[in-house]
């Protein structure tokens, strides 16, 4: 049977490298007792891990220090760069989306501060987020009406028709529809780090709380709830 514990599988490489905190190790090892699928997958990764440990390191045949010095000496004296050295200034946000992201960031920060007092207890961050949210502030939006929505924080309800794990960045994405098995309007919902929520199962009916946005990239052009802040399962 296919295992849907994507949240645990994402920790496999950290587990193999001994960089997983002990509580997470226990959680993973408890799961492995009962899950043959994950045991098989972990065994393959362990083989890959052993192979990666044998990667040869290389050193340059010729030390280029002399060439580096010559290049430095041939250039005019370097001046102190008055611009900020940080790369973060390159990552600016469009104003409309920026407000929503600032709001989400403040919310997440508040949750992290609140969680500092509960550090000794294992508590999924999804629950912490849910506790911190005032769900009444989320605008209820039907999937078919999402394009009319102007509010940044929305709640929408529908059936989960697909669940995917991004190869690129490891983020979890699921598709929310009004009716399973029929073409029609949909909303793409994205769970991103550091918000850890359990993936909803395909076919379940869920309420999704999060930030509304439109993805206009080529090949996409769809509405999203991104990031997802909370998921309530209405019917499994």
């Amino acid at each position, binding site marked *: 049977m296919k295992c849907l514990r994507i949240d645990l599988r994402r920790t496999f490489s950290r587990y193999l490298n001994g960089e997983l905190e002990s509580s997470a190790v226990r959680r993973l090892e408890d799961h492995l007792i009962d899950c043959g699928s994950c045991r098989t997958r972990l065994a393959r990764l362990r083989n890959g891990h052993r192979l990666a440990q044998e*990667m040869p390191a290389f050193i340059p045949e010729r030390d280029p220090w002399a060439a*580096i010095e010559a290049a430095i000496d041939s250039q005019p004296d370097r001046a102190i760069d008055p611009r900020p050295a940080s790369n973060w200034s390159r990552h600016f946000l469009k104003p409309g989306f920026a407000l929503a992201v600032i709001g989400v960031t403040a919310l997440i920060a508040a949750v992290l501060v609140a969680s500092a007092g509960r550090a000794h207890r294992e508590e999924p961050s999804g629950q912490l987020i849910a506790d911190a949210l005032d769900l009444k502030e989320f605008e209820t939006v039907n999937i078919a009406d999402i394009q009319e929505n102007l509010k940044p924080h929305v709640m929408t309800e529908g059936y989960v028709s697909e669940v995917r794990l991004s190869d690129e960045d490891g983020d979890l994405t699921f598709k929310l529809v009004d009716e399973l098995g029929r073409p029609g309007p949909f909303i793409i919902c994205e769970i991103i*780090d550091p918000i850890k929520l359990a993936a909803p199962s395909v076919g379940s009916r869920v309420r999704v709380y999060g930030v509304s946005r439109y993805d206009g990239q080529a090949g996409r052009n769809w509405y999203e709830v991104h990031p997802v802040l909370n998921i309530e399962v209405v019917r499994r």
Partner: protein
Amino acid sequence: MKVRESQPEFEERSTIVAAQQGDREAFRALYERYRDGVYNIIFYSMGDELRAEDVLQIVFVKIYRGLPSFRFEASLSTWIYRIALNECLNQQRRSGALHIPFEALLGSDEEFDSGAAADRRHAEGERREIVHRAVMELPPKLRAVVVLKYLDGLSYEEIAAVLECSIGTVGSRLNRALSQLEARLSPLRRLL
């Protein structure tokens, strides 16, 4: 051999400040500390020794030029590796990365006849080369995390800082990389 494990620990900050003020010996100390680690990431990105040496030179000249602007907002290693990876990307956009197909390494079955009396060092060299080539077959983003983790010994947090992504993303990419390495090399188990 992990490059970072072979370097003695020393307080960097005063060395960085001295280098920022033009102390050539201080800059050379930083160069000696990071050269091999940076070379690994460049070599595995470019795939060619000569090009990698050229890029290494360019990277350290850029580091020297940019050092006065370094504000200690990130660790020096994060900053340096990021410069190296960006330069590799620039070079690849200009001229493309050299790629030798993995299959080109395998040759005919007779070369790898397990009955042959192969010299032990030669066999180990071939093994390393097989693993090296398999890593070169990984997509660039997966290859980068593998090199930063398994050769340069960076932590997940440090790799995330270098690549400007989340720790979860680093974990996911490593999972994918290890899975692909295993899939790539498992048919060659008898050789490894």
